[in-house]
């Protein structure tokens, strides 16, 4: 289906063939129980109520919080919207949200809602938008998105019980490691995502 609301080209496009690299944990540069070094920035999007930017290795995630806005429900609500930028992965992706992004939006909402003091936000909703500018590992992106989103909420001055952080893990050949990159995830037999608030 051609999206006529954008500039469009032919429907069938593909990547040139490149061979997938064989990766194992033995070649990994950082220790198995280490995550990539992180860089944070708060207030990246001045138009928003709160925003944060996070960079880990080549992974870049930006998040903005808008609100509180009025809704008719008496209790506060958090809306999450998770999106990969069209150029964030190896293959270009469309603008329409796919199943995976919808799923990740839900995970984000479930991870963050318990940490927010929603009783202090009567008749209000918070809109949270996460865009992955460059991804290096799908699960690592989601974990980064959770961390980034909770920083943006703190930056917006939303009362929270705690900051929420996320981290991914996976195992290759029955050896488990933290914070897998895209190549490692491709090889991994299983992936796991955890998020944690301190309380």
């Amino acid at each position, binding site marked *: 289906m051609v999206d*006529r*609301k*954008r*500039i469009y080209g032919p429907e069938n496009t593909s990547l040139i063939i490149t061979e997938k690299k064989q990766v194992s944990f033995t070649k990994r540069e950082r220790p198995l129980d280490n995550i990539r070094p992180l860089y944070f920035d708060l207030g990246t999007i001045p138009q928003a109520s709160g925003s944060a930017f996070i960079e880990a290795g080549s992974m870049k995630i930006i998040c903005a919080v808008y609100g509180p806005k009025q809704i008719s429900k008496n209790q506060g609500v958090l809306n999450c919207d998770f999106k990969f930028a069209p150029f964030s992965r190896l293959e270009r992706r469309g603008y329409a949200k796919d199943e995976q992004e919808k799923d990740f939006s839900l995970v984000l909402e479930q991870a963050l809602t318990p940490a927010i003091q929603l009783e202090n936000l009567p008749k209000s909703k918070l809109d949270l938008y996460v865009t992955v500018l460059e991804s290096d590992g799908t699960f690592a992106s989601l974990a980064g998105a959770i961390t980034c989103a909770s920083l943006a909420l703190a930056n917006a001055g939303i009362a929270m019980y705690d900051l929420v952080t996320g981290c991914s893990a996976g195992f290759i050949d029955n050896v488990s490691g933290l914070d897998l990159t895209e190549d490692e995830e491709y090889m991994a037999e299983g992936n796991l995502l955890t998020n944690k608030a301190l309380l």
Partner: protein
Amino acid sequence: MRPDQRTNTSVRTMGSGLGYLSRADGSAKFQFGKSSVLCAVNGPMAVKQRDELMDKAYISVSFTPLVGKGTTLDRLYERILEKIATLVIIDALHPRTMIRISFQVLADDGSILTTAVNAMMLALLDAGVPLNSTFAGVTTMVHTDGRLLLDPTVIELEEAQSVHNFVFDAISGNCIATNSTGVYTKEEFDGSYELASLACQSIHGFFKAAVKHKIEKEQGKE
């Protein structure tokens, strides 16, 4: 001489019909030769609560091309027409209402944007919407061989170096909207501007005659 025996600085034969649609509050068809656009104006009427504006009328414009639902180009046209309508209609007189302007392209033989602009002018007059001025639009193009042509057709547009759409205000003579594409020099733009400005005056004379004709016809009936 151009393929249709016109001089470089003349527009095609203009045609118009006011009150074309019986169910719309105002409607008009405008033709530049074979290019033809029908415009209907409805309102001021009830507005959805979501779109309601407290201090002025909400103006909604929809532009439907000859075939299909339209592409981003049609949305660009829609935006241009909406901006012109918002500028010209005295919207503060009808707060918390909606004025809907719909366009349907009937035949496309080039210069379709300015044909639509002129159709909108006539339809707004026909609907009796309060306006703070009148306007007229015309397209010019610079041919790859350097000739400056007024009101180009589809065949001529294929050899265009640059295309310029102008809308002029009839009272102040100022330009209220331009949309130009292609590569051109300042001199070419100035030439187009002068030519379009003169052409708009004559188109405006045509509007006057069309409206006068309609009024006379109505009064004759009574």
